[in-house]
C-alpha cells in the first residue's frame, strides 16, 4: 500500500504559529523599550537626581506622604527587568504568558517615564491615579453600553452619538430643573437613541455600522447646531451645576486608595456597582444566559422558545441608558457646561475598551482604567512641563486605542453572531 500511516509520535518540523510570531514581535519591542529606558531615562539623567512622588493630596487626613527615589537608579532597574521579561518572551517557551509579561513591561515603562519626567521635581502620583479613575468613567460606561448590545449581537457604534446627545440634554434639563432632572433626561435620551438603533438594525436589518454612523452624524449635527443657536443665546441653559464628591467615611481616609476610589461623585460609585452587577448578571442569571445565547447562537435560543428580537430590543435600549448615564457624567460631573463635540471620540475609545476588555465587564473596567491612565498622563504631563510637545501628549489615548484595536493584546473572540441580523425563515 502506498499511503503511510503516521508514526506514533513523529516530531514534525513546523513554521512558527501566529502566537509564536506575536511573541517574537512583542519580545523584541520590549527589549527595544528596555534599551530606550536605559539610554534616554537612565543615561539621560545625571546621577544623583531624585524624583519625588506625592502620595497625598491637599486636604487629606494624612498629609505629606512622599516617595523619593534616585531617578537614574530606578531607570536602570526598570530597564533591567524589562529586558529580562523581553528575553523570556523571546524564548517563546510559554507563549500564554506573553500578555502578562507585556502588561508588566508596559507598567514598568510608564513608571520609568514618570520618574524621568519628574526628575528634579515632584509629581502628584495620587492626583494622577485619582484622575485615572475619573477619566475612565465615560470610557468604561461607553464600553459597557457597547457590551450590552454586542452580547446580543447588535454592534453599537453609536455610543459616541448617545454620549453626546445625552450630555447635551443633561445640560439643558439640568440647567432648567436641576441636576437630577438632567441625569434622568440624559438616560432617557440614551434609551431613545438605543431604541432607534434597535429598530433600524433589528427590525429593518439595516447594516449596523451604517445605522450607528448615521446616529453619530445626526447627534453631532443636531447638538452643534443647537449649541450655537440656543446655548450661545441663553447661557443660563448651559450651567447645570454638578454632582459633587461624596467621601465615604473611614475608607476615604486611607492614603492613596482613599483618594482613588472612595472620594468621588455618584457616577464613579455607580460605575463600579454597574460593573459588578453586569458581571454577575451576565454569567450567573437567567437574563445573562439568555442574552449570551442570543449573541452566540440566536437560532438555538429561538428553538428553545426564547424571543430573540425581544431580548435584543431590551438589551440595546438598556445599553442606550448606560451610554446616556455616561453622557450625563460629562456635563453634570466632569465639566458643568456643554461644548460642541464635547465627547471628541470617547465613544469610539469606549468601543475599543470593550474589545480590549474582551466583551467582559471586569475586562472592560481594566481597559477603561488603561485609557483613563493614558488621558490622565496626558493632562498631568502637560502641567509638569516635559520637553514633549503637548500635541503629542494629547495623542496618547488615541495611540493607545490604535495599538489595542490592532490586536497587540491578541485576538479576542467576539460573540459568534455579532453584527448579524436574525432572520426567522
Amino acid at each position: 500500500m502506498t499511503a503511510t500511516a503516521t508514526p506514533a509520535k513523529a516530531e514534525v518540523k513546523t513554521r512558527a504559529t501566529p502566537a509564536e510570531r506575536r511573541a517574537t514581535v512583542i519580545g523584541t519591542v520590549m527589549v527595544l523599550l528596555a534599551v530606550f529606558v536605559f539610554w534616554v531615562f537612565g543615561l539621560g539623567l545625571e546621577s544623583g537626581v531624585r524624583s519625588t512622588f506625592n502620595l497625598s493630596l491637599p486636604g487629606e487626613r494624612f498629609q505629606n506622604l512622599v516617595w523619593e527615589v534616585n531617578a537614574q537608579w530606578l531607570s536602570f532597574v526598570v530597564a533591567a527587568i524589562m529586558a529580562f521579561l523581553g528575553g523570556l518572551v523571546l524564548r517563546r517557551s510559554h507563549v500564554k504568558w506573553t500578555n502578562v509579561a507585556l502588561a508588566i513591561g508596559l507598567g514598568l515603562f510608564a513608571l520609568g517615564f514618570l520618574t524621568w519626567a519628574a526628575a528634579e521635581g515632584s509629581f502628584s502620583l495620587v492626583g494622577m491615579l485619582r484622575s485615572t479613575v475619573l477619566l475612565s468613567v465615560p470610557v468604561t460606561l461607553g464600553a459597557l453600553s457597547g457590551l450590552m448590545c454586542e452580547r446580543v449581537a447588535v454592534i453599537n457604534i453609536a455610543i459616541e452619538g448617545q454620549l453626546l446627545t445625552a450630555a447635551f440634554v443633561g445640560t439643558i434639563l439640568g440647567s432648567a430643573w436641576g441636576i437630577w432632572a438632567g441625569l434622568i433626561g440624559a438616560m432617557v435620551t440614551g434609551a431613545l437613541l438605543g431604541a432607534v438603533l434597535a429598530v433600524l438594525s433589528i427590525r429593518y436589518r439595516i447594516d449596523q455600522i451604517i445605522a450607528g454612523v448615521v446616529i453619530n452624524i445626526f447627534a453631532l449635527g443636531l447638538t452643534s447646531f443647537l449649541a450655537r443657536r440656543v446655548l450661545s443665546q441663553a447661557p443660563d441653559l448651559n450651567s447645570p451645576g454638578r454632582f459633587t464628591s461624596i467621601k465615604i467615611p473611614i475608607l476615604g481616609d486611607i492614603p492613596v486608595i482613599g483618594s482613588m476610589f472612595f472620594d468621588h461623585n455618584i457616577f464613579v460609585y455607580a460605575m463600579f456597582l454597574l460593573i459588578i452587577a453586569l458581571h454577575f448578571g451576565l454569567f450567573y442569571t437567567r437574563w445573562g444566559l439568555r442574552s449570551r445565547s442570543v449573541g452566540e447562537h440566536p437560532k438555538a435560543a429561538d428553538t428553545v422558545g426564547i424571543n430573540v428580537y425581544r431580548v435584543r430590543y431590551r438589551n440595546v435600549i438598556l445599553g442606550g441608558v448606560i451610554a446616556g448615564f455616561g453622557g450625563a457624567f460629562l456635563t453634570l460631573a466632569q465639566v458643568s457646561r456643554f461644548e460642541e463635540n464635547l465627547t471628541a471620540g470617547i465613544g469610539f475609545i469606549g468601543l475599543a475598551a470593550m474589545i480590549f476588555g474582551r466583551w467582559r465587564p471586569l475586562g472592560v473596567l481594566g481597559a477603561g482604567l488603561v485609557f483613563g491612565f493614558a488621558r490622565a498622563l496626558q493632562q498631568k504631563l502637560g502641567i509638569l512641563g516635559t520637553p514633549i510637545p503637548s500635541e503629542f501628549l494629547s495623542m496618547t489615548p488615541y495611540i493607545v486605542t490604535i495599538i489595542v484595536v490592532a490586536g497587540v493584546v491578541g485576538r479576542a473572540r467576539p460573540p459568534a453572531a455579532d453584527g448579524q441580523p436574525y432572520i426567522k425563515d
Partner: protein
Amino acid sequence: MKLELKGITKQFPGVLANDNVNLSIGEGEIVALLGENGAGKSTLMNILYGLYTPTSGEVLIDNQPLELHSPGDAIAAGIGMVHQHFMLVPVFTVAENVILGDEPTKRIGWLDARRARKMVKEISGRYSLDVDPDAIIEDLPVGIQQRVEIIKVLAREARFVVFDEPTSVLTPNEVEGFFEIVAGLKADGKGIIFISHKLGEALEIADRIVIMRRGKTVAEVLPEEVDEEKLAELMVGRPVDLVVHREEAKPADVVLSVENLVVLDDRLQRAVDGLSLEVRAGEIVGIAGVQGNGQTELVESLTGLRTSLGGVVRLNGEDITTKSPRAIHKRNVAHVPEDRQKSGLVLPFTVTENIVLDSYYEAPVSRGVQMNWGAARDRAVRLVEEYDVRTPSVDVLVSTLSGGNQQKVIVAREFDRDVALVIASQPTRGIDVGSIEYIHSRIVQERDNQSAVLIVSSELDEIMALSDRILVMFEGKIAGEFDSSATPTEIGLAMLGSQGGLEAS
C-alpha cells in the same frame, strides 16, 4: 396519546413544499419519515415544531388541535426536536445548554447551577447517556453533542421526539449506541419520528415507514414488507441502482504526496497534525472520518485556501505547499468544495458567470481588460448540456437551481479541463439521488481517465462505494488504511480512533 398532522399544506413562493400531508404517531412508536432532499420532510417538521405556519391543515394531540406559533408552543405541547444542525451554544456548558429557555432559578433570576447539574446527571443516568454537565459544548465530539440535544428534549418532558437526520454525523459504532438510546426512549413510551434518507437504518429501527416525495406522502409501509431497493424506488419514484459501477483501479504514478502536514484551524488548534498520504493517478482515495477531525482544514490546505504550519505538499513532484489557490488551480487541480453555497458558487451570479469563475481572466473568456461574454456563454451552454444541468437557461441566477444542479455546475466548471487531481469534499451532500448517481459516475470517469482523485466525505456509504483505497482520519492524523473490501465496522472503529487499518483488515 397520539400526535397527528392532518392535511398539512405549505406553500412557499413558487414551491409547494407540503401538499396535503397526513402523519400520525402513537405512544412508544417509532415512525421513520423517508424522503429525498427537497421532498418536504424538513418543512413538515418545522411546522410541527412551530417554526413555520402551515398554509392549511392542523396538528392535533389526542384530537385536540394545537396552536403552534413558536417553538415555545411546541415544547409546551410536549413536542421535542433534535435538529440535524445541533442547536447548542458552543461556548456554553452542557448544563447551561440544557436549561436554556427553561431555567431553574432562585430569587431575582439567579441561576440554580446545582439543580441544573443534578437534572443533567439524572437524565443522563436514566438513559445511560454518560454526559458531563460541566463540559463545554465545543470541546465535545459530535456524538456526545447529540446526546446533549437529547437531554435537552427530555428535560422539557417531551412526549414526542423528532430526530432530524440523527445518524448523519455519527460513526457506524455510534449509530448502534444511538439506536439503543432510541430503544430506551421507546420503552419509556415516547413517540418518535425518525427522519432519514438512509434506508437500512429506517428498516432496522422503525415500526412504520412513511415515504415522502415532492411534498406528498406517497407510501406507508411496514419494515418487514419491504427491502432497501423497494424503499429507494418509492423514494425516488423510479428503480434506482444503489451500487456505483466501476472497474478495478489501475494506479499509476504518484500525483499528490503529502508529508507531515500540520494545519491550524480558526481557533489556532492543530486540526491536521502531521498527516501524510499519497494519491496515484487512476485511483480514488477516500478519506472517511467523523466531521471535525481536520478534513476541512486538510482540503483547504491542499487547495491553497489555508496556509499550513508545517509539512510538504507535492503535486507531480513539484512542491506546491505555499502556492496560491490560483497557482494550484492552474496546475490542473479540480476542487469541489465542501460547502457549495459558501465557497463553490457565487449565488447571486448567473450560471454563466459561475461557470467562468475560474477562467474569466484567460482567453477566450477574457479579451485583455474586457470580458468576452459571448465566449463565456458558449462555454456555459456547452457544459450545461454536457453535464446535464437542469436549468431553464444559462442566464438564470445559480441560486434558483436545486442543490443537485448547483453541484453539477461546480463539477462542470472544475472537470472541464485535463484534470490531474480531483479534490472533492462532500461531493453529494444534500442532493437528490439522480444527481448523486451522476456525480459519482463522473468522478469514476475522471479516475478512468487517469486522474488522481481524493474524496472526503462524512458519509461512509459514499466513501465505500467510490474508493479504491480508504483512509480514516482521526484527530488530524490518518488512523487507518483499508482497501475496498473492508467492512463498515472495521472502518467505524478506526473513525473512533482505535488503531485499525492494514493490521486489522
